[in-house]
């Protein structure tokens, strides 16, 4: 089986140069130091945001989830026993809160969608390119939405984010074998969904056309 994993380091969260096992502000926050909480937030907000955005896909409710993650982290910090790295615990909370948000959103069909406006286009392309990319990502995450949240999380973390199976196991507190099993079935389901999804056809034409143009014009 060929994997889609990128060779990126597993999330910015894990690559912080001074990511000690237990950063000093954690102990100070547990003692009730408001500035330590704010320091914790400043140091980790972008990394949490990236993980939330990766798990959610192109949706506009990521800001709400980021806020919810930190509220949950603050409230739960007193119960952080320091048996794992702080960053691992933070990832676990982030993944759990995000998955809970996804589940809650799925269970409210009568109330419609959370989308209230288009998510902003990535700024490294023109607005048109950004909008087209958003459309493509929306098509991809629509397929990923068919997975149960457990399989979805493992698939995204492993195949899109490049996180290793043992790190995912630590993050989600499940055996590595369970990670691999979920990944196996997630891939099967994703590929089967792709094979039968007609909405991918225009994307196929678009991407193949772009690839041909790129080869011809060298960008």
């Amino acid at each position: 089986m060929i994997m889609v994993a990128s060779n990126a380091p597993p999330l910015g969260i894990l690559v912080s140069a001074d990511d000690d096992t237990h950063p000093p502000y954690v102990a100070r926050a547990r003692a009730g130091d408001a500035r330590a909480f704010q320091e914790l937030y400043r140091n980790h907000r972008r990394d949490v945001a990236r993980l939330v955005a990766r798990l959610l896909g192109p949706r506009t409710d990521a800001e709400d989830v980021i806020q919810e993650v930190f509220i949950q982290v603050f409230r739960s910090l007193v119960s952080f026993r320091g048996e794992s790295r702080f960053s691992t615990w933070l990832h676990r909370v982030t993944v759990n809160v995000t998955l809970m948000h996804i589940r809650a959103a799925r269970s409210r069909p009568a109330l419609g969608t959370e989308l209230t406006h288009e998510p902003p286009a990535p700024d490294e392309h023109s607005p048109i390119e950004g909008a087209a990319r958003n459309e493509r990502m929306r098509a991809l995450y629509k397929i990923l939405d068919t997975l149960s949240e457990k399989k979805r999380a493992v698939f995204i973390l492993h195949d899109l984010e490049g996180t290793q199976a043992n790190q995912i196991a630590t993050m989600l507190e499940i055996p590595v074998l369970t990670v691999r099993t979920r990944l196996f079935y997630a891939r099967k389901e994703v590929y089967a969904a792709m094979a039968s999804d007609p909405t991918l056809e225009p994307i196929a034409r678009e991407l193949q056309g772009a690839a041909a143009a790129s080869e011809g014009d060298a960008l």
Partner: protein
Amino acid sequence: MNHPLPDELFEAARTNDRARYAAHLDACADCRAAWGRLRAGSLLLDEAADEAPAVDDFDWSRIDAAVNAEAERVAADIRSGRLRAPRPWKTWVATGVAFAAAASAVAYVKSHSTTPTVDVVAHREGPSQTAPDHGTPSQTAPDTRARFDGAVLLAAGGANVTVNGAATPLAGAAQVTEGARITTGERGRAVLAVQPSVTLDVRPGTEVSLPTMREGGVDVALAQGEVLVDREGDAGAVTLHAGRWNVTAQGDVLARTEAHVVRVVVLAGRASVENGGAAMQYTGPVVIELPDEGAARTVESPATDPLRLDLSLLGATGTRVMLPPLDPSATFSVRDHGALPGALEAMRLASPVRIEARFGGRVMQLDLGNGANPQWRAVTAVASAQPVARRTAAQPAQPAALPTSAIQSPQGRDLTQAEVNAYSRLAAGRFSHCISTCREQNRCAQEITGDLVLEVNALGVPSLASVAHGAEGARTCLEGETSRMRFPATGGDFPFHIRVR
């Protein structure tokens, strides 16, 4: 004809190895179509894996304000002792063992006296005293299923768990065991995993107990308030007991006690309802009223009726709800807190005491904790160009790769100006968050001088050769991003400079 499986086709599609199945694809139109879709899917996965989500465009000022305010509250709660760490699980186990021993002794005495079928499960705290007498699960027959220990996924705003009569604040990652009673304060909320793939969302002002929590099924006694059962597929059974009614959720179900009635909203899937007679089956979405007296009846869903919009269905803080189209001339009120125009598009709970409404280009907020008669007030305009404005403002923190001319590659072909521009933009996008984060964490200087230099080999694989002065703290992040980039294979090595400003 033997058709290749989708994952087999995908494996070939990953490398565009059509030749592997060429004969079959030429002969089978369905597989040919599947091949095209899988190629597209493969490219989509590549694209998603290659580009990190952009987070610079988030409305950080809003998030910062909310999180920093919460930091103050939590810190104050810790200092005042209102928020404490739960007892470690070893203590729970020790207490449980001691309690089990005591309960066994009780069971032994009873089993040799008057009651031959004493249920040792019932030694744990049953439904709360205020829980209804009717509809609670039978405790006369021993339950031989193994106990399931639940987990707290979320506890916020004041939630307590009572076991053995001792109440303690509920905290994230704690365990919840059979017999526990959960109570949430006016602003409290708790989300529990009560079975694999089943969560119980305990809303504010709720009292609920778990008289039975076994592998394969859980009983939930709702004394007052509101709970949401979120149940996936063939997960364990969940039976809600409220008033004289038993509701078995076979999907997602919200239940709320009101005056003389239990309101049950079947959001998705099915629910079976009974009160001692034949069970009635309901398929969602549907709202059922279960009165203290009389028969169950279905009612129109308040969620689809804007004139009866029920804020409790908005759910958790931060949840944004898109409203159905309204008659433009209509107005409606939100729990007696003032009228809103029919042009309302979306609402969200911005905090436990603040509702935010969005319509047209305007955002209005209602602070429920602000006096006895809160009023809606306009807070900001939603400008369509806002993301662009934010990007412009954020630009000084971003690196910009601005080589002004085509790159000469000594051995291979040159990079065209178009390529240089395109890869400059790509590199700037990739590296900006490294520099921003590094500056925020005071690991990088605010004034960075010089260039980031990538060495790109003949195959187009770059490596980070040097970093700009003052940006050393971002090296790990920059190296990570560099490793994910690919340049055109020119057949020769060349340096690629990126200026940070």
